């Protein structure tokens, strides 16, 4: 651990805090600017006869009468102890609600990431080998289509053909990991199509580098050069992007979870938005931002470490 690395980590840490502050404040600000007042929405939902005093009372009970910055400060100090208040809709603690949803979403995302990495390596290498072949163009074309198909459509097709028509798996009743597989697969398709092309391009570039030429002069086979030398380089290049893709998964999961009716954060987001359940929304925003930032940091650190270690001595593949 060098000193520059520590400096780097400290700076990154400051940036994380800044990001989280900005984003959560944004969610407060937007909520305040929103045309629909949460207190009014809450009262109209829960009582048949709405009076102005009732709305005012609820506002005070929810702390909405204080200035925005003070509201934010109160929320922030409580959030530091993981207390996000209670959900307006169910009356349960937000921590509990969100805590129940997170494992589901994380399971889907991790599974999707696994599938994605597998797919990228397979399809990426395939399209590298086929790059001047007719089939290579077909593969590229398929990949562009893969980026263009909305994930919700792939999931509908998957459900309607495999589950409903052929009943290969049941729509809701599966347990364990199998339950998350279809959703993860639909998420992964996008990533695979996008990054396998980048992977193939990276391989092509690395194989034209001087070191690859030198390896060929040493009499190494093409496959060995590819596996031992080009693969690590391209992986190092792509890893940060993959981390970002995971972030996109987290955000894109809202729609997919809804289609497969998984009780993850996606469903929670939708419900809280429709019900204008502000404590849940704020907590979810914080969670999303936090996990995305964490992924970003990991990708940055990985890039830093991978590129840092490359020129130094033994073990390096060059």
């Amino acid at each position, binding site marked *: 651990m060098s000193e520059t690395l520590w400096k780097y980590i400290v700076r990154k840490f400051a940036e994380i805090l*800044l*990001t989280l502050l900005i984003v959560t404040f944004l*969610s407060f600000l937007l909520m305040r600017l929103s045309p629909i007042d949460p207190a009014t929405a809450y009262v109209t939902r829960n009582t048949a006869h709405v009076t102005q005093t009732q709305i005012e009372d609820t506002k005070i009970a929810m702390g909405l009468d204080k200035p925005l910055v003070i509201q934010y400060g109160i929320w922030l100090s409580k959030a530091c102890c993981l207390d996000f208040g209670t959900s307006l809709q169910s009356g349960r603690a937000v921590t509990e609600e969100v805590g129940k949803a997170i494992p589901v979403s994380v399971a889907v995302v991790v599974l999707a990431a696994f599938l994605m990495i597998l797919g990228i390596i397979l399809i990426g290498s395939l399209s590298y080998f086929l790059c001047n072949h007719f089939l290579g163009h077909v593969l590229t074309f398929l990949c562009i289509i893969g*980026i*263009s198909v909305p994930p919700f459509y792939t999931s509908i097709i998957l459900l309607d053909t495999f589950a409903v028509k052929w009943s290969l798996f049941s729509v809701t009743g599966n347990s364990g990991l199998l339950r998350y597989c279809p959703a993860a697969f639909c998420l992964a398709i996008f990533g695979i199509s996008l990054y396998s092309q980048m992977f193939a391009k990276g391989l092509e570039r690395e194989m034209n580098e001087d070191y690859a030429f030198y390896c060929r002069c040493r009499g190494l086979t093409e496959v060995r050069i590819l596996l031992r030398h080009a693969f690590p380089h391209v992986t190092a290049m792509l890893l940060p992007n993959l981390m970002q893709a995971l972030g996109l998964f987290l955000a894109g999961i809202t729609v997919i979870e809804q289609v497969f009716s998984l009780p993850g954060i996606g469903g929670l987001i*939708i419900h809280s938005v429709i019900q204008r359940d502000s404590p849940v929304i704020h907590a979810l*925003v914080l969670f999303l931002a936090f996990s995305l930032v964490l992924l970003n940091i990991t990708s940055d650190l990985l890039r830093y470490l991978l590129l840092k270690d490359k020129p130094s001595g033994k073990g390096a593949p060059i």
Partner: protein
Amino acid sequence: MKDVGRNPLGTVLPAAIILICMMGFLFSPNDPFHVDMSMRFLPPTMQFPFGTDHMGRCILSRILEGGKITLGIVLIGASIVFVLGMIMGILFGQIKSGKGFLLDSVLNAVTALPPIAYLIVFIGAWGNGVFTMIFAVTISLLLRLIKLVKSETEIELTKAYVLSAVAAGVSKPKLLLFHVAPNVTQDALHYICLSCADLIMVITGFSFIGLGLGDNVIDWGMMVSESRNFVLTYPGIMIYPVAFILLSTFSLNLLAREIEKRGEIHA
């Protein structure tokens, strides 16, 4: 290397498709809102080129109207983003390093989240509506574009041609406008095209799961979710909106690819 002007079709065709999808509502054959329960699920005829849906409405007209909304949001947002992003990015980029430390860290902090996350924040706070969407799209893309253009500008400013231009006595505004900006435009356009394709999918996705753009607003995602109930008996109804979503995102992705390719040839 292949010739630059080799295939104008590569850029013209996708652009034309997008334009047709967006402006097609001017030529819609029927009123997209007209309900006629005696004409449900008609097969394609001369009067209804794509047939009718479960409420007897003309599918083609609805698709064209939906295209106006969906693509309209994305393209209006994207053009605002492009103009503002280029201007602000270049202006920020020419600030000498060291001075812009605060700006740098704020920009880094804000762009740590992908645009979709901002979209979710906006929808969460404001609900879903056409103007919310345009606003959210603009903000979420703008931040990233500014960062992109800024770092590109910083790289461009160290290149030899800039030094030559300065030595030749070009003034700063002229340098930025005529020498730096054209070299940055391409990456910005590439980024915008890709994000537009993403955004179309996100917006249709949200309205598909029920966060529609509001009452009486037609868009493609809503059409897919409406037709889903009838997909086993009338699979045709769902094909049309999905095909159009696919067509427009595919065109945008192709366009981005073409732009990227051009850059490689120039370089």
